[in-house]
């Protein structure tokens, strides 16, 4: 039985914090203003704007801030301002006892994939893979991807329609949606936070990786049995990819197409989930229908 945290209503409190990398306070102002505009009361955790070298605090500080917000009954959702790196350093120290009784939406992506994956794998609690604070800046606070986060928090069912791609493998799939950043999903394999992908719709995205490394990580997913029993596969955008001096010889999309060619579930490419502007809110643990044809892909929440 999957636990869906309660949706938010006007006046509810949203906590904002940084469980991983450091983020200057001013870079989160627009996000805070937008959340306030949406009718939420925003409270700030100590780790937002706080810096300890690369991190937004020591492991203890970040752990404490997140634990405190998870356990505080007055907070209805936790908005991670930034990813970066650091969630994996504290995940095993978090306690979920109170959180299980009072689940709330955890919002973020990238390094937050660790928390999404952990929450669903161990506790069957749904969470939100969605834009974080930086995505609100530069006048983007009103775009449809940011809007999709508001809709998700309010409990409106998503219906994302996306352009087709020549590599799309057509078909329909029903299943629980899981996924996130490929590097983190690969990193979690073999640990207690790893994803179980059987009969699921999996989505993946990544940023700034070498193509050979995407290939290597996809091989890990494949060889650890994460790809053979999927219901469907959603390939998000792989942005700012890097290549080696001797070119790898394939694009990221070609790499992925080849690795999953033996499976007959639907696969869509270029879905708007990414480190770029195109990043729809997706419920990890939510139930969706994926319909893929060469001319479009539709992800509909059930």
């Amino acid at each position: 039985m999957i636990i869906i945290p309660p949706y938010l209503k006007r006046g509810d409190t949203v906590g904002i914090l940084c469980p991983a990398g450091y983020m200057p306070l001013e870079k989160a102002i627009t996000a805070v203003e937008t959340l306030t505009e949406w009718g939420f009361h925003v409270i700030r955790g100590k780790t937002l704007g706080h810096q300890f070298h690369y991190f937004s605090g020591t492991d203890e500080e970040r752990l404490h801030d997140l634990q405190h917000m998870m356990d505080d009954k007055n907070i209805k959702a936790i908005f991670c301002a930034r990813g970066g790196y650091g969630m994996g350093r504290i995940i095993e120290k978090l306690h979920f006892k109170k959180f299980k009784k009072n689940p709330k939406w955890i919002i973020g992506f990238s390094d937050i994939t660790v928390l999404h994956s952990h929450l669903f794998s161990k506790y069957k609690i749904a969470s939100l893979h969605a834009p974080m604070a930086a995505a609100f800046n530069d006048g983007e606070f009103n775009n449809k991807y940011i809007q999709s986060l508001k809709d998700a928090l309010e409990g409106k069912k998503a219906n994302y329609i996306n352009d087709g791609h020549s590599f799309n493998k057509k078909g329909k799939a029903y299943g629980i949606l899981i996924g996130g950043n490929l590097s983190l999903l690969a990193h979690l394999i073999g640990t207690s936070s790893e994803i179980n992908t059987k009969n699921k719709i999996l989505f993946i995205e990544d940023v700034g990786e070498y193509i050979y490394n995407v290939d290597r990580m996809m091989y890990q997913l494949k060889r650890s049995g994460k790809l053979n029993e999927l219901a469907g596969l959603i390939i998000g955008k792989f942005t700012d990819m890097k290549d080696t001096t001797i070119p790898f010889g394939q694009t990221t999309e070609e790499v992925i197409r080849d690795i999953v060619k033996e499976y007959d579930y639907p696969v869509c490419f270029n879905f708007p989930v990414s480190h770029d502007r195109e990043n729809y809110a997706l419920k990890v643990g939510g139930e969706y229908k994926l319909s893929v044809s060469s001319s479009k892909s539709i992800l509909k929440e059930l």
Partner: protein
Amino acid sequence: MNRKNFLSSIVPLSASVGAFNKETFLKGNNSIFEEDKKIKIPSYLKRGDVIGITCPSGYISLEDIQPAVEKMKEWGFEIRIGDTVSDLNFTFAGTDKERAADFQKMIDDPSIKAIMLGRGGYGAVRIIDKINFKKFAAKPKWIIGFSDATVFHSHINANLRIATIHSKMCNSFPSDWANAEPLQIDSIESIRKCLAGDKMEYTAIAEEQNKYGVAEGELIGGNLSILQNLAATKSEIQTDGKILFIEEVDEYLYSIDRMLWNLKRSGKFDKLKALIVGGFNRIKPDDPGEEFGENIYEMILEKVKEYDYPVCFNFPVGHQRINYALKCGMKHRLNVSDISVSLIEIK
């Protein structure tokens, strides 16, 4: 040295391995049975024996393997050059099919007594599941290399229980032998000694961050990125009761930390006899103002702080000029004290 540590580290290996573990058994992980299997040692080489050169990963030219070819001929071996040497397919030494076929041919050919890889790079994981190890298991031979070759070391150790050699390969033989550093020459010489069946002995600098103790166990390890990449696959490294060595190159500190967490959280540090930290080289600089704030010593010691096995740093293994040949699968004794570090192959 701490007496308690010393005593706990000399508990016979058999006390910790081979015991029935219900949890592992029910999970369907048959590694405990593999653990019981004695390691098979390929035949050591004699003059006139043939060493094959193949490239299961990245591309290397015929010219670039010449220093290795000449040196190994000088050692008295004959060299057989595989089809993948100088076969350029983008970053790879041929297609997956070609690389798998060349590797397969070499492991199956009874006239070849050892296989040295041309270079690492990337690509072993793309072909490992296509390789049929049946003949190799019946007639094992030495597989020599490092970096991407960690895939073979880990896979062969976990599944076939055959010893392999983690060492420099063709691309890292110095082209100008006369001007090579003595320790670099020594590193290359260690391959010859391994192949000749010498009992290996190494020393390392006594770093102040080392954790003292004496431990005995089978040696296994390799490149950290590859070890993470093999987690939960058929080639996953089995570390229980073993001395693990790790090395890395060209990574960010945060990424190294993340990979170490994978090893820790997947239980790879739990039941070690000892940890050998090799070179962590050419670490990529952090963005100014966002420095990671921990060095390699700190991040590793943090991961193993609850264990009392010995740990040594800067052991001469890795992507560096001094990279000694280590026999994976063979039993070794590591002695880490305040004045010295030694790793000795034992019976």
